């Protein structure tokens, strides 16, 4: 199973974390610190797997962002590597040629999409089309609720950032 997903920029800034195994806040920070140290320092032409504390971390770099997933030692590494790519393709389709800034300002979207892809650290849906359909349905629901809420509360909300 995937124990956690970590998106971290080349500068070591965390862009998304998702934990499927119970880690405390302290452990989370430690894991992030340790792993970014290991992964960001790896050269470009090496394999996409890092052995780490009895686990394996499968990672792949897309432009300035590293996508990492931590799995059990006996799990299938390439399968997970392609889950990462699958996720990236879905993000790309959703944002239209996704870049790091999209993920920074719309990190919540990245979470929504991830939740349609993985549950319990396992792959939930392997069709990009299906995921895209579900996400756009969710967006519509939110939009509809917003319109319903009427203009007054909107104005208040805008005024109080």
């Amino acid at each position, binding site marked *: 199973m995937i124990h956690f997903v970590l998106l971290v920029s080349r500068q070591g800034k965390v862009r998304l974390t998702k934990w499927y195994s119970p880690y405390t806040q302290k452990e989370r920070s430690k894991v*992030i610190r340790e792993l970014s140290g290991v992964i960001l320092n790896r050269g470009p032409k090496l394999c996409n797997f890092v052995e780490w504390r009895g686990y394996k971390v499968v990672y792949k770099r897309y432009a300035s962002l590293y996508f990492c997933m931590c799995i059990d030692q006996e799990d299938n590494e390439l399968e997970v590597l392609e889950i990462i790519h699958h996720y990236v393709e879905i993000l790309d389709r959703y944002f239209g040629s996704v870049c790091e800034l999209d993920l920074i300002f719309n990190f919540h979207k990245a979470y929504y999409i991830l939740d349609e892809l993985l549950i319990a650290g396992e792959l939930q849906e392997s069709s990009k089309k299906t995921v895209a359909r579900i996400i756009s349905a969710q967006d519509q629901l939110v939009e509809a609720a917003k319109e319903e809420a009427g203009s007054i509360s909107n104005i208040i909300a805008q005024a109080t950032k």
Partner: protein
Amino acid sequence: MTGMRGLSVFISDIRNCQNKEAERLRVDKELGNVRTCFKNEKVLTPYKKKKYVWKMLYIHMLGYDVDFGHMEAVSLISAPKYPEKQVGYIVTSCLLNENHDFLRLAINTVRNDIIGRNETFQCLALTLVGNIGGRDFAESLAPDVQKLLISSSCRPLVRKKAALCLLRLFRKNPDAINVDGWADRMAQLLDERDLGVLTSSTSLLVALVSNNHEAYSSCLPKCVKILERLARNQDVPQEYTYYGIPSPWLQVKAMRALQYFPTIEDPSTRKALFEVLQRILMGTDVVKNVNKNNASHAVLFEALSLVMHLDAEKEMMSQCVALLGKFISVREPNIRYLGLENMTRMLMVTDVQDIIKKHQSQIITSLKDPDISIRRRALDLLYGMCDVSNAKDIVEELLQYLSTAEFSMREELSLKAAILAEKFAPDLSWYVDVILQLIDKAGDFVSDDIWFRVVQFVTNNEDLQPYAASKAREYLDKIAIHETMVKVSAYILGEYGHLLARRPGCSASELFSILHEKLPTVSTTTIPILLSTYAKLLMHTQPPDPELQKQIWAIFKKYESCIDVEIQQRAVEYFELSKKGAAFMDVLAEMPKFPERQSSLIKKAEDVEDTADQSAIKLRAQQQPSNALVLADPQPVNGAPPPLKVPSVSGSTGPESVARSLSQPNGTLSNIDPQNPSPDLLSDLLGPLAIEGPPGAVSSEQHGPIGAGGAPDEVDGSAIVPVEEQTNTVELVGNIAERFHALCLKDSGVLYEDPYIQIGIKAEWRGHHGRLVLFLGNKNTSPLTSVQALILPPAHLKLELSPVPDTIPPRAQVQSPLEVMNIRPSRDVAVLDFSYKFGTNVVSAKLRIPAVLNKFLQPLQLTSEEFFPQWRSLTGPPLKLQEVIRGVRPLVLPEMANLFNSFHVTICPGLDPNPNNLVASTTFYSESTGAMLCLARIETDPADRTQLRMTVGSGDPTLTLELKEFIKEQLIAIPVGSRALVPAAGPGPGQAPPAVQPPSPVIAADDPGAMLAGLL
């Protein structure tokens, strides 16, 4: 896209921060802002709440502690509208983990969403539970989730989430799914046409069969069907192909599930499966597109594992080996990595080792790869494939690599090199070379027992002695040498330096001066060895060299008053002895041969196969007619009393060697206290085997892998447990009661240990919840069977022990989590009824579990403004109880304060105007009381420390009573074991005389896992 301007502005601000400090300030400001808004509930619109919890998540993601607002995130879950609910669910599942108390508050809302009619709400709820649901969720939600999964009216959208949600619940509590009813349903689910649901269901199946494959045997043919549908018929909708490959993920999962079934009996199913596998093995080509390549190889590697598992026909197996051979020589690093990894697995398959050996040079190339991941795999593979025929090449490669290897790999590398060198040495001088090189290149990673072992071989093999001595002398010429090298060369030159006397630079005085140069650089454990060497050198100079004698005597004189007892004693006694002439010669004569023992290193490596390695060392051992009385084999597997007869004593050896030969085969029964070798020091020095390894040698007895094989020591003799006594009762290592008391005050350590098993414990406490993990480690080379562990819970605790496997494999460690929930205050103790079979012996023990009252206390220090109003509000019985306690173990106040602090009752200094009184506070957690403040006051009488007056108060009468009694117990009878753990503030009158006190169990590390790892 939903615009949230406030959030975007905040993110921009953070991005614009010049440095970490500015970022922190901005975050703190925002947190303050959010906190204020959360307090003012009236103006908190759902929109704002939503925005704030997103900000919290963002701040959390940046790595800052967000210790408030969890409640607000959770409360959004019960919002009626989708946008808020969605945010509530997603932020909760990111901020919290399954152990958070707040999550429990949400169970009902979540359940309502799951059983409700709103599909989108169902999805949100299932996702949350699937991602962070814990045991509580498993118990209350599993049936509802199962219903959704098999419901014909639910859309795939919901059902695929239900499948993975159920998987999570099953992982948290395997009893959540009732096998009898579920197996058929599971098989039906595998007929599903929707690939999303099918993928999720197959993941669920993998978890289920890994736990119990028999119950799900009807799923086996279905998995084969899925594979046929995908890999053969390519029968999937376009959107489920990935770079032209029919859902590679589903193929991998189906093959993974099949690997949990031991065999495939049905011939037609087997045939169909092999057809598919053959197609995958043969039909996977390397293509340009990296994603397509990865996906097809993901399937291919899974197929390889399945073929290995099924023990296919030879032809198919050699196909696999050929494929792997190809993979380990490709440039593409991922494929090479996986090729090496799978080839290591392949070593388990019979009859292919020789083919694998053909790739040796290729694998050695990978050992020099720039990628550490690949080097690790290559190292593992080389280690696995090493035997007598290729040991020389492989070990030399490892040594060469050692000089350039990064720090993180050196330890493993040197251990592996040492094991291989010993296990497969073609000749002994080569072995000595290897180990000396190892010490030279990576001395820090060469444990004592490795150099003890070299000394042992050299002592036992005369023809090796001049060679070893000259090698040792060579290394001394190096400018900076590792301390271990000083030890081993000093020892060898002391014994055999005289064999080199005619060579240039090797006279006794020259050896002395080159060794003595090293003395200022070494630690106190090495100095005794050097002193022994000096004495030996002195003894070997014939005719006596007055100049050398003068120098050495001066050194002995100098150390006569050394603060280190061992050094001092050696100096004094050598000095006296060296004046005695003949007696001196006698005492310092060459060391007798060591009894052959199996090396602990090898034992570690050998537990699996005991094939006849024709290593030179083994051969020698077998041929030697020396006084090796017992060739210690690993303990017999059949569990009958070891068929070890009292060996007949051959003439020349004294009683000592008999005693030594009787010494336990594995060194595991040893009861010596490594900290306390002093009682034996005298006999040590006066005995004929005066010159020994450093005192450290004794302690190595107990520190696991550095096992008994190392330096011989008479102290050894005192630790012998007669072999005959092992039959029925087990000799406990350490005192159970002491171990329990120690664990009452700390959270990890050993709970129980006997020669066969060690049970370690590690606990985490949070509020009224505790999570303990039992580490059951089999210390032997044969399995422990019929392992049973049963918890006998007292009424106030809810305990759940995950099932313990029936068998613990040799030298393996299993972990078994134990969940604890404190329902109400009580001093009763839970008991673990534990038993196992070793061979035919049944061993059982009832062990108290250290989930005691003080574990549910959390330290809390109050100021006088906080303390006194509370104290006054508790007016008297039953909430506030007072008692005069007599017969208290006398403690001075700082000691008593330490004692209180050690069980989490925090002393609040300065609150009580009377300096003879102590005031303390703590928080107690249980389900019935919640978090409850407890206060205590101790009034002591400086004139009579055996009595005191204690007042305890809390908001709950039972708690007050139980806490008062608990503290009383601690004050009256402080258990022996705990004494060492209370950080004592100076020797109080209460301290028992140290000599009488049995030494508390010495624990090498705090982590039981690590401790066991050390043992195995």
